[in-house]
């Protein structure tokens, strides 16, 4: 039953009934209703329970500032938490749930905390719940449940979101009267304009006003103005679009809710779209939020903002009560009482804090027979689940003290207005500090070169002034965007009759007969149950900074970010500190303006599209042969190739033994490859590697280690001389991009005189490593124009030739310790070459192997992997690789000087050694810490850690590489690796080369 719906009026479509449910109860509303207006129409009073005290709470506002009516929509994976019922359009089948109140809003176990309220002062959570620490987890669980923070969807988001990059001359935020006028004048100058508004319908305050424009209802003018904008193809209108953040250099984020209002079943396409807008000029017309006046028990359901009551009445035809008491300190709120009266409802009285209230507004109300009680304050509301009466009292001229007896006035709805706070959030995001204006009695946008504000968002509240200011600011915006405005036909301002407003009184907290600390609770922040008393207490406890008070009392910490209560809280703090609001200042506003859906920010960059996947030319073959994958950066590399029934270790053992005993083949295409050319190429390479390339002749390769200037290893690889002034540098798979930038950095900034050029050719080549005692035989079957004999094609040589009919470069380099050839062909021939090698190797049992076997094979040889055995704090000497450091190079290569720094040169640095466990099958977990004495008391002295650890099938026992303090001097000593479960793994320090220490096997 829509018991509170008027028979006529409002902008709802009464011929389109909409059934929806709230907390499981089915109700009827109309197309055009918000969830809040429909709930009020159905007589729903309580929509939530308060955070700390469990008090029943009702709808207070009609917009983004709503603190109480926080709902969860839908169930399961598509569920959305923390939406404001005032901003949710109803649709058929909508299911909404209140997020606070446990177990339900009408029966709330938490209400018991209200009785113990005096034991719950501000800072309560710090003071109590943080101790004892181990209880915090269980407290937190309870708090979340009790506080109404909603619940996370229980599955992967099934909806689609997308993003769009937009550019415009002028972005206008907010389509109220000022914003529409700004968009009109900017667009008439030919500017590309985006006009965004968070509501379904554009028009802002015009949608709820009874003021006539040009002698007709305001929506007629509105329709005309919007039609003009719609017909201009250079104007983009974005309704249902929240500008949630204003970032650097006029970059703004807008989330457009494209189908949320249709419900899941009717939705097609993207649910929400993130517009990433770069605007030449921004006009903020984001409006203002009415401030409630704080009084005792001001949270009782039925106590609302005056403007919200007017909006529900005029826009939705909803009257959430019959007998109204309006409490105000300004003229603006009178209109709500007048409208209420004209709608046939009773206005019990208007309580005006101003003793001398006597303007047009007062006259208009009085002429309707409305009782205006001046020089009084509403000091307390009576009722618990709904307001039943109010207590009013005469107050002194500056509204700081009650000066007479109380009167009890029965009523069932209360509206209050303490004036309006401009929405300065976006301006504040952009870096402009809000400034307190005594005239506006609010913070207005701070001066900023980049941002223009118009209308009530800068403190202009008269409708006529807003309409005029919008035109002017729109004009300034296009000029600032560099567009000529000569001779443009500016939009006219409609005629309207507006009462002359009398000056408002600064009133934030209504005085009570009792001091604040003893009066019934006077709520400042509804969502987090912050009271006037708790702010005063914070001030007494020494919290002078507004940022500290915010954190201590939790004021403004809710999902509403204190849109409703913060200014009142600042005023109360300022008063308690005996200083002005300007001196007190405001907290910093940060994005998002209202909560944003992560889905919209992620857009399509989820799942497979989160990050590019790089595949080699042989990828499909690996897939067809059952490869398990390892991600190396963005590359997919075969990890191992399990045969039916094989566990990972079985497969790795088989792959390793094949390489040691016959021949294996590895797809090494992912290694970074940089083509380096130029007359100074050798000099340049010699400066960035530890060893020299000046005398490296064509046909030869050399392994090098690259250091940062601090002397620490950051990449390694082989560089081949391809010809005169032409080199090919191999980098690690993960380091390729970083190495290229590093080379460019030095060439461009320090040594521009060196003529050298770099080209990334990683993707241009497919590389197959053929390795094992039979590798030569395999290659000889496919290639006749290269002499593979030991003498003609030595270790660390490379040759150009024809392999399987393909032009190829063959490098005789080895990462396994076996006889190895790396065959490179143009990438598109990769799979063909691979299959030819497999076919040629069949008679030798050629075995494809993956990265795991590659790791085991190289660890058996003590070859390091940069980033695994090194961590950015390891020098070549630490890695026992002093042999790779050129001692007689003319140029002080990058990192050289650092190798002589006292800390780098000291003796007991962590050094690379091998570890051999006393139990051959025990593989020490990688990352294990190393200690000398297993019986040492905790904290034990850490000696180092294990960097690589495997089972070696070739050796028949486990092997590990580790870095140990002074390790190279400690060969033969025994150390221990304590494990989380208390086990102590005993191991001997040995050489890091476990297999074929003489290097005979590759030298055949």
């Amino acid at each position, binding site marked *: 039953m829509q018991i509170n719906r008027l028979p006529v009026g409002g902008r709802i479509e009464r011929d389109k009934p909409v059934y929806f449910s709230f907390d499981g109860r089915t109700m009827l509303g109309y197309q055009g209703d918000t969830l809040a207006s429909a709930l009020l129409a159905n007589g729903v009073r309580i929509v939530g329970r308060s955070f700390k005290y469990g008090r029943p709470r009702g709808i207070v506002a009609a917009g983004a500032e709503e603190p109480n009516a926080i709902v969860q929509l839908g169930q399961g994976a598509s569920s959305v938490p923390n939406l404001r019922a005032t901003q949710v359009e109803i649709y058929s089948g909508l299911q909404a749930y209140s997020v606070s109140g446990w177990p339900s809003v009408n029966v709330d176990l938490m209400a018991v905390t209200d009785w113990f309220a005096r034991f719950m002062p501000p800072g309560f959570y710090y003071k109590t719940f943080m101790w004892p620490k181990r209880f915090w987890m269980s407290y937190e669980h309870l708090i979340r449940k009790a506080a109404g923070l909603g619940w996370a969807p229980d599955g992967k988001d099934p909806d689609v979101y997308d993003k769009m990059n937009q550019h415009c001359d002028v972005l206008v935020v907010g389509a109220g009267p000022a914003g529409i006028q700004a968009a009109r004048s900017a667009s008439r100058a030919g500017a590309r304009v985006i006009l965004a508004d968070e509501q379904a319908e554009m028009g802002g305050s015009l949608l709820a006003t009874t003021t006539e424009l040009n002698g007709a209802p305001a929506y007629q003018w509105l329709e005309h103005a919007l039609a003009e904008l719609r017909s201009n193809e250079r104007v983009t209108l974005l309704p249902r679009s929240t500008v949630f953040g204003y970032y*650097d*250099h*006029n970059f703004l984020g807008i989330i457009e809710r494209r189908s949320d209002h249709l419900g899941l079943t009717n939705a097609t396409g993207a649910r929400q779209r993130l517009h990433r807008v770069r605007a030449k000029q921004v006009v903020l017309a984001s409006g203002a939020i009415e401030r409630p006046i704080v009084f005792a028990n001001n949270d009782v359901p039925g106590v609302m903002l005056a403007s919200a009551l007017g909006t529900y009445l005029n826009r939705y035809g909803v009257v959430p009560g019959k007998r109204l008491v309006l409490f105000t300190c300004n003229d603006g709120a009178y209109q709500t009482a007048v409208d209420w009266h004209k709608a046939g409802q009773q206005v019990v009285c208007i309580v005006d804090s101003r003793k001398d209230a006597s303007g047009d507004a007062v006259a208009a109300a009085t002429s309707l027979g409305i009782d205006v009680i001046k020089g009084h304050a509403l000091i307390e509301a009576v009722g618990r689940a709904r307001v039943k009466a109010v207590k009013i009292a005469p107050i002194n001229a500056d509204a700081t003290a009650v000066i007479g007896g109380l009167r009890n006035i029965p009523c069932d709805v209360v509206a209050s207005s303490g004036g309006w706070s401009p929405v300065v959030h976006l301006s504040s995001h952009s*870096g402009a500090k809000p400034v307190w204006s005594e005239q506006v009695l609010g913070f207005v946008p701070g001066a900023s070169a980049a941002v223009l504000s118009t209308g009530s968002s800068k403190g202009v509240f008269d409708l006529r002034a807003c309409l005029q200011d919008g035109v002017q600011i729109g004009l300034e915006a296009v000029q600032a965007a560099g567009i000529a405005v000569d001779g443009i036909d500016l939009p006219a301002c409609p005629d309207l009759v507006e009462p002359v407003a009398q000056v408002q009184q600064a009133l934030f907290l209504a005085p009570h007969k009792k001091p604040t600390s003893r009066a019934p609770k006077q709520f400042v922040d509804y969502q987090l149950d912050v009271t006037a008393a708790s702010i005063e207490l914070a001030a007494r406890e020494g919290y002078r900074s507004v940022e500290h008070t915010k954190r201590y009392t939790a004021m403004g910490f809710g999902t509403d970010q204190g849109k409703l209560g913060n200014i009142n809280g600042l005023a109360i703090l300022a008063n308690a500190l005996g200083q002005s609001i300007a001196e007190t200042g405001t907290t*910093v506003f940060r994005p998002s303006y209202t909560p944003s859906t992560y889905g919209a920010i992620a857009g399509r960059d989820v799942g497979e599209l989160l990050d590019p996947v790089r595949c080699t030319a042989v990828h499909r073959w690996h897939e067809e042969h059952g490869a398990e994958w390892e991600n190396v950066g963005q590359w997919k590399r075969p990890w191992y190739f399990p045969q039916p029934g094989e566990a990972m270790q079985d497969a790795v053992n088989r792959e390793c033994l094949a390489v040691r005993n016959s021949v294996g083949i590895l797809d090494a295409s992912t290694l970074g490859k940089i083509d380096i050319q130029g007359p100074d190429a050798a000099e340049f390479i010699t400066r960035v590697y530890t060893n020299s390339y000046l005398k490296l002749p064509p046909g030869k390769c050399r392994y090098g280690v690259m250091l940062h200037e601090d002397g620490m290893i950051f990449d390694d690889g082989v560089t081949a001389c391809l010809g005169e002034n032409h080199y090919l540098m191999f980098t690690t798979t993960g380091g390729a991009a970083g190495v290229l930038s590093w080379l460019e*950095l030095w060439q461009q900034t*320090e040594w521009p005189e060196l003529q050298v050029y770099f080209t990334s050719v990683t993707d241009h080549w497919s590389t197959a490593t053929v390795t094992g005692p039979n590798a030569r035989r395999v290659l000889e079957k496919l290639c006749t124009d290269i002499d593979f004999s030991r003498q003609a094609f030595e270790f660390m040589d490379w040759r150009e030739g024809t392999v399987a009919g393909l032009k190829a470069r063959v490098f005789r380099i080895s990462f396994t310790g076996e006889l190895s050839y790396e065959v490179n062909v143009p990438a598109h021939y990769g799979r063909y070459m691979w299959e030819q090698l497999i076919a040629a190797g069949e008679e030798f049992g050629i075995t494809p192997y993956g990265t795991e076997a590659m790791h085991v094979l190289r660890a058996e040889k003590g070859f390091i992997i940069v980033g695994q055995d090194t961590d950015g704090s390891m020098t070549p000497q630490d890695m026992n690789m002093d042999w790779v450091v050129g001692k007689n190079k003319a140029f002080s290569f990058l990192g050289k000087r650092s190798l002589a*720094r006292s800390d780098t040169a000291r003796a007991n640095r962590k050094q690379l050694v091998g570890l051999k466990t006393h139990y051959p099958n025990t593989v020490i977990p990688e990352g294990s810490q190393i200690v000398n004495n297993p019986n040492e008391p905790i904290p034990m002295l850490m000696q180092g850690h294990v960097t690589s650890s495997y089972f070696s099938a070739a050796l028949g026992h486990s092997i590990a590489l580790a870095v140990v303090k002074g390790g190279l001097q400690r060969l033969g000593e025994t150390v221990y690796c304590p494990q989380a479960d208390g086990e102590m793994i005993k191991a001997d320090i040995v050489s890091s080369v476990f297999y074929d220490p003489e290097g005979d096997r590759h030298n055949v």
Partner: protein
Amino acid sequence: MLLIYCPYCEETRDEDEFSYQGEAHITRPLEPENLSDTEWGDYLFFRTNPRGLHHEMWQHTVGCRKYFNMTRHTVSYEILETYRIGEQATVAPASADSATAEGAC
């Protein structure tokens, strides 16, 4: 997100295309071996961290891949100029005044 003018491409592009590369005008000593550990450590590790104008180096990573310099205000994020490697800033470095520039915390 910053809008950055690449002095080589001579176009204003989105920050997405660039990467920050640290303080500008750090010159590598010509003879590192002649420096004390302290002097070398200064070159390696010590950087200014001004509240105000800062000269910094960027790379147009997914554009022309050129390194260039920028004078940027570290509070307002205003970019006062970008200029090529080898050129000098025309906007003066951070002074005592800019150190107290107002800004958000």
